[in-house]
């Protein structure tokens, strides 16, 4: 039963990774940029949720929605200010800018509020439910429920709405999409907004689940979510979900086996193996190099 317990923990961690990975994979799919600042949007989301709950005394769901909305706005601002000019720049220039934006967000937050960690208020009652002799905390179930709802919502947006259709068209071929009358700039902004909102949600969930947040908390989950996105096949939305969940489970298993200090290395080993053996990931499409 111990193992089922660990599996539940792994899925909870994995669903946080999956939510962040979705933002990575959508942005990468549409403008081929590793948005390093995405992990920091996740951090900002956690802090927005924290201040909303601790200062304004509101519940979990209003805080979640406030955090998602503000993160969406932040994501669009980042895209408009920093990345928009770099559409036609080299990949290296875009990547360096993304690293710069990431460092800027982290250290601006540290500058204004210090680097000390913050304890998340207990916003949800912590009860344990027994299912077949396994005690599962209600928070784990709630996290899973919120994640599933957000992913269904995302699938709906991407596949059933007009903006989703535009997003798919732009990621397939931006020039052709522009010729078809799609406003490419707005579509890219919408992608950033949706991705950042998911990261914001992940931030609040992370805070509630792990109860400890700090300004540099976004770096490692951000990198691991990127690994999850690569694992699942970058640009693929189901891939990000599967990648996130499997990475979460793998990390928890490595910890449970008694190698908790090697947990972070496990993620990077997975990354390197997948990059060397199958760079397109599980659900990725093989692309051929064109001159």
């Amino acid at each position, binding site marked *: 039963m111990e193992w089922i317990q660990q599996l539940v923990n792994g899925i909870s961690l994995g669903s946080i990774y999956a939510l962040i990975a979705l933002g990575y994979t959508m942005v990468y799919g549409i403008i*081929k940029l*590793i948005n390093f600042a995405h992990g920091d949007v996740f951090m900002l989301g956690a802090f927005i949720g924290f201040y909303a709950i601790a200062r304004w005394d509101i519940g979990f769901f209003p805080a979640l929605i406030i955090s998602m909305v503000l993160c969406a706005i932040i994501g669009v601002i980042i895209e408009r200010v*920093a990345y928009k*000019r*770099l559409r036609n*720049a*080299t*990949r*290296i*220039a*875009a*990547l*360096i*800018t993304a*690293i*710069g*934006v*990431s*460092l*800027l967000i*982290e*250290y*601006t937050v*540290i*500058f204004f509020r210090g680097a000390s960690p913050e304890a998340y208020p207990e916003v949800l009652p912590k009860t344990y439910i027994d299912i077949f002799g396994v005690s599962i905390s209600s928070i784990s179930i709630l996290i899973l429920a919120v994640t599933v709802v957000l992913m269904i919502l995302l699938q709906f947006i991407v596949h059933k709405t007009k903006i989703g259709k535009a997003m798919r068209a732009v990621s397939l071929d931006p020039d052709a999409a522009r010729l078809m009358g799609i406003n490419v700039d707005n579509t890219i902004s919408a992608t950033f907004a949706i991705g950042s909102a998911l990261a914001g949600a992940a931030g609040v969930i992370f805070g509630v689940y792990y109860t400890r947040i700090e300004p540099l908390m976004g770096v490692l989950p951000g*990198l691991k979510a*990127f*690994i999850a996105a*690569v694992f699942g096949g970058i640009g693929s939305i189901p891939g990000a979900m599967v990648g996130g969940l499997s990475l979460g489970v793998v990390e928890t298993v490595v910890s449970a086996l008694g190698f908790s*200090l*090697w947990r*972070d*290395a496990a993620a*990077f*080993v997975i*990354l*390197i193996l997948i*990059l*060397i053996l199958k*760079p397109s990931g599980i659900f990725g499409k093989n692309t051929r*190099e064109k*001159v």
Partner: protein
Amino acid sequence: MKKSKAFWVFSALALVIYAVVQGLISSGIIDLYYQNILVQMCINIMLAVSLHIVIGITGQFSIGHAGFMAVGAYFSAIATMKLGLPLPVGLALGAGVAALAGLLVGLPTLRLKGDYLAIATLGFAEIIRIIFLNVDYVGGAAGMVVTNMTTWTYAFAGVVITIIVISNFTNSRHGRGAISIREDEIAADAMGINTTYYKVVAFTIGSLFAGLAGAIYAHNFFIIQPTTFNFLKSFDILIYVVLGGLGSLSGSVIAAIFLTMVTAFLANFPETRMIIYSLVLILVMLYRPTGLMGTKEITSLFKFGKKGGTKP
């Protein structure tokens, strides 16, 4: 015979700089604080130049350079502290093991391109760091105590060797092969250049000098800890190269000198330093993506009358 002239001018200049600074140190005008900044500056120049050969010359985007620095630091410290070998042997061992690590990391990863290569090198650097974090022989998270043995002489000799080797490499047949990979890898391949070979050679040389810098760094402070070599350190090195100009050796040297001084002045305000760093990084990329010097060298600024030169 133009190249050998440049070599002798550089050697003479290096000798003069060394003699002047050494004179100032022995006469006590430069105190220990400034001496430490000078050594730090030398270390940063070596790191910048060693990354310059990977990013600037070969065009392979690596953001895991701190990992090789860590290898150099730890292995040289093991040699001097645990095995009792003299410092020069320790430095050579650190650099050699770092080069070996660079070869082992480079062989599989350099097949990747662009973003994937960047993230894979970052992953390897983190794995290297986590290994040092978990090995009790080198102190684990608490770090390893190292005697302060680095002097200005060692640091400056390191810089001179690094610059001579890397500028000679750049001007050689190998260097031209590497530059052709930077300009267009597919075209270089089509011209019969063994791209994998040159990429791995450049990466290994870069790792070697990063290891040497790490070894000198390890003996400059009293303790080395795995957290020192995290990816923020890699980003620091990246900023030198990007700000100086991707492809300009003198540019990365100037940027390393300048940013070391900025760091020294802002030593009490680390957050402000990082905010300035990140803003510089963003603004340079938005308004001058080639960096301050582009691919030009400082020497080309003194060649008046001649038109043209290397175009970026």
